[in-house]
């Protein structure tokens, strides 16, 4: 499944043919990966349910997540408040549902941009090789050497805690790994015959990279994307727990655990439910990515 130019027919394929082939390559790569490991489907299903709950939060949340009710402070789980209420009498379930939106938005935006930038860097480094490769990857290794939470901590402290800044901080820490992930298959693909054929036909570097190499390395990058999305959600929650999350009173899972931790001796549910929420999302993504990785990792092929 590669998007090879149909040089033999002597006809230049139309633009649409390229796009169709490229998308088919990526999709079939992913589909094969899913079928190779059934647990991936479970992970995907759980994650999609969480995403759906997050999207529907304004409709299904039983209360306004910011609505304070001094008469119902620190109430344990009950029929009216399934997950209890917090120090200000806010409904924990509603806050968890709304918090999912923040976690997923920051995670998806951060990993989406890191994936695009990192893949570009890795693809260029791998494609051109030589000095470019050496220099670029050296820089990436220096960045990679720094503990990501510490790097995120500094960047957020520097820029101030907002959704946009958290996205920047988390994306920064995730670019080097994507560059590494994209570089290896690029080197493998660039020596294949169809790329040589492309060179012979006089195709430009840009055209070869984006139309012929990118679709072939995309499945691997997307699979790592799901694993890194899990990491991003974990880092966002960790930063919020330290006090560097989106400013209160906005509901974030990490921030809720931080607040719940202050009342942990008598109101344990405040920390417990958001903890479980993080765990479910991160675990589902790991389950998804882990199964897929086994399938796309060329070293393990044929062993499934």
């Amino acid at each position, binding site marked *: 499944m590669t998007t090879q130019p149909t040089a033999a027919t002597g006809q230049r394929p139309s633009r649409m043919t390229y796009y169709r082939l490229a998308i088919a390559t990526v999709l079939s790569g992913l589909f094969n990966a899913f079928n190779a490991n059934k647990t991936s489907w479970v992970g995907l299903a759980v994650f999609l349910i969480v995403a759906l709950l997050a999207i529907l939060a304004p409709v299904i949340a039983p209360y306004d997540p910011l609505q304070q009710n001094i008469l119902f402070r620190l109430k344990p789980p009950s029929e009216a408040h399934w997950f209890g209420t917090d120090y200000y009498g806010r409904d924990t379930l509603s806050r968890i549902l709304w918090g999912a939106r923040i976690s997923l938005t920051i995670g998806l935006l951060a990993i989406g941009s890191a994936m695009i930038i990192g893949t570009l860097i890795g693809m260029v480094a791998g494609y051109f090789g030589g000095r470019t490769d050496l220099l670029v990857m050296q820089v990436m290794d220096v960045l990679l050497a720094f503990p990501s939470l510490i790097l995120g901590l500094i960047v957020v402290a520097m820029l101030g805690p907002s959704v946009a800044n958290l996205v920047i901080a988390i994306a920064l820490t995730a670019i080097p790994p994507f560059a590494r992930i994209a570089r290896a298959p690029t080197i493998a693909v660039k020596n294949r015959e169809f790329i040589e054929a492309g060179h012979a036909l006089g195709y430009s570097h840009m055209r070869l990279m984006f139309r012929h190499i990118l679709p072939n390395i995309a499945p691997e990058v997307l699979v790592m994307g799901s694993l890194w999305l899990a990491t991003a959600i974990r880092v966002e929650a960790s930063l919020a*727990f330290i006090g560097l999350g989106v400013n209160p009173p906005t509901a974030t899972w990490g921030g809720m655990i931080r607040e719940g*931790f202050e009342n*942990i001796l008598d109101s344990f549910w405040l920390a417990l439910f958001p903890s479980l929420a993080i765990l479910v999302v*991160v*675990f589902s993504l790991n389950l998804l990515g882990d199964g897929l990785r086994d399938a796309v990792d060329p070293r393990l092929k044929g*062993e499934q």
Partner: protein
Amino acid sequence: MTAFVLKRLGFAAITLFAVLTIVFFIVRVLPGDPALAILGDQASQSALEALRIRLGLDVPLYQQYFVFLGGVVVGDWGVSMVSGRPVIEEILKVLPATIELTVASLILGIVVGVPFGVWSAVRRNKLPDYLARIASLLGLSFPAFVSAVLLLLFFSIHLRWFPVISSGQGSGLADRLRDLALPAINLGLIMAAYITRVTRSAMLEVLNQDYVRTARAKGLAFAIIVWRHCLRNALIPVVTVVGLYLGILIGNSVLTEIVFNRPGLGKLIVGALNQRDYTMLQGMMVIYTLIVVLVNLITDLTYGLIDPRIKYS
């Protein structure tokens, strides 16, 4: 060998220099005037001016940069803007507590992770393998503070086996161990999850080698093949990954120290962030960089000890 060590040392020095430069400029770009942060809004203009001179903020940026680089080399990392004590002194005071915690959890991670990884690989696609894989996947899904909170809820608050606040300054050995236990278990189990997974995949690769078949064909006991022949060859990726995961371990130690209210680098850096203690922050980043570069160097050099086939070139 010497050439390799020199080359690695050179690369470590370059990395260190690059990160120090980044650190210097990051701290300078932080919004807010440090003098204003220390003295507050009510301070007079002359007092602010005097403090800026004392902190060395009155000279041009490039001079500050050279003073900073020189200071790092000779161990003069400036004084904390909050406590007024030397930064290096404050760091060295809590560093042993963090090292104690990370080393303890690393040992726990290896002791739990390696055997599980081997067992999982040997019983591939059998029940033990599935259990080990699910457990390790679950382990690395835990943000360190979530698992810390859950451990604290269960063992300290529900069962009352351990103190809620581990001071890290206990007098006797028993006290120290009790303080260390929960934080180390928290970090160690997450580390074990990572190590189980690498060990498993490294072992799977080794188990397929021809020499393993030969060893079995000549009638060697399977346990000996696994533990003496295969594990030794699977260790290289395990060591690499343990080195790589040090970054995660350091990040997690920050969270663990906060939850268990344990003194260490983590509490120091969060305190410095909240109080905008720039010199302290700068010192913290220097020490983290030093640790990471040093561990990477050690990891690289260990390969030769583990695998005699590797020739340093």
